[in-house]
């Protein structure tokens, strides 16, 4: 698979007194092949980790009331990687000990396929849980990726979140 190693972030601060102190760091990639969630989780796992939070975005068969057959994802790849790295840096800097792995897929995806996967680990659960939410919100706001939805009737359209019907988000 065409994983691309982008960078390893530097340790956010000097290791704490315990030799087992976790180090911040991460992995980001824009990929063309299906995302392997197990491998992504393995990238943030080791004996110092107590909590792993993941977020997966998947292709739905309906969006804003229209029946979708698939989605084409396009990226401005070098900038998308740079923005993902910046987001990861910010998140790890805010949360020493955090480890992050982020992959976004491009190309044509079918219903149910994973378009984006984020895995965050930390010795404690609160930072791991907070990190996935922070990263997906920042990614949706800042990373230059676009999606073109293909509909049952054969038409297609670029998704513009600035004009979409506002989703209702209970809970």
């Amino acid at each position, binding site marked *: 698979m065409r994983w691309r190693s982008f960078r390893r972030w530097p340790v956010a601060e000097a290791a704490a007194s315990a030799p087992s102190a976790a180090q911040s760091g991460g992995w980001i990639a824009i990929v063309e092949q299906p995302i392997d969630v197990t491998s992504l989780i393995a990238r943030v796992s080791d004996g110092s980790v107590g909590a792993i939070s993941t977020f997966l*975005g998947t292709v739905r068969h309906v969006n804003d009331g229209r029946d979708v057959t698939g989605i084409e*994802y*396009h*990226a*401005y790849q*070098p*900038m*998308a990687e*740079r923005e993902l790295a910046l987001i990861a840096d910010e998140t790890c800097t805010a949360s020493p000990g955090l480890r992050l792995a982020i992959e*976004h897929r491009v190309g044509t995806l079918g219903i149910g396929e994973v*378009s*984006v996967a984020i895995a965050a680990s930390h010795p404690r659960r609160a930072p791991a849980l907070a990190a996935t939410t922070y990263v*997906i919100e920042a*990614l*949706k*706001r*800042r*990373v*230059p*990726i*676009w*999606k*073109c939805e293909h509909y049952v009737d054969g038409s297609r359209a*670029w*998704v*513009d*979140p*600035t*004009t979409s019907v506002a989703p209702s988000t209970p809970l």
Partner: protein
Amino acid sequence: MTIHVLLFASYADAFGARRLAVPVPVPCRVDDLVTALRGLPGGHVLPSKPLVAVNHAWVPGDVSITTQDEVAVIPPVAGG
């Protein structure tokens, strides 16, 4: 001078190109480039303040650009 602008998604569809040579004044700010781009066929799709990146970083409209810069005019992002 001529700035080569990268276009994506709906903008690439509207302009019929993923890379466009745009004649601009010297010196040139991002806003000047956008104005020039808006005068080309397809330019009507651009909002008043489209997103622009120079050398892979988001920039405001008053940033100066040269022919050495990688400039991209970017439609609303929709990753995730």
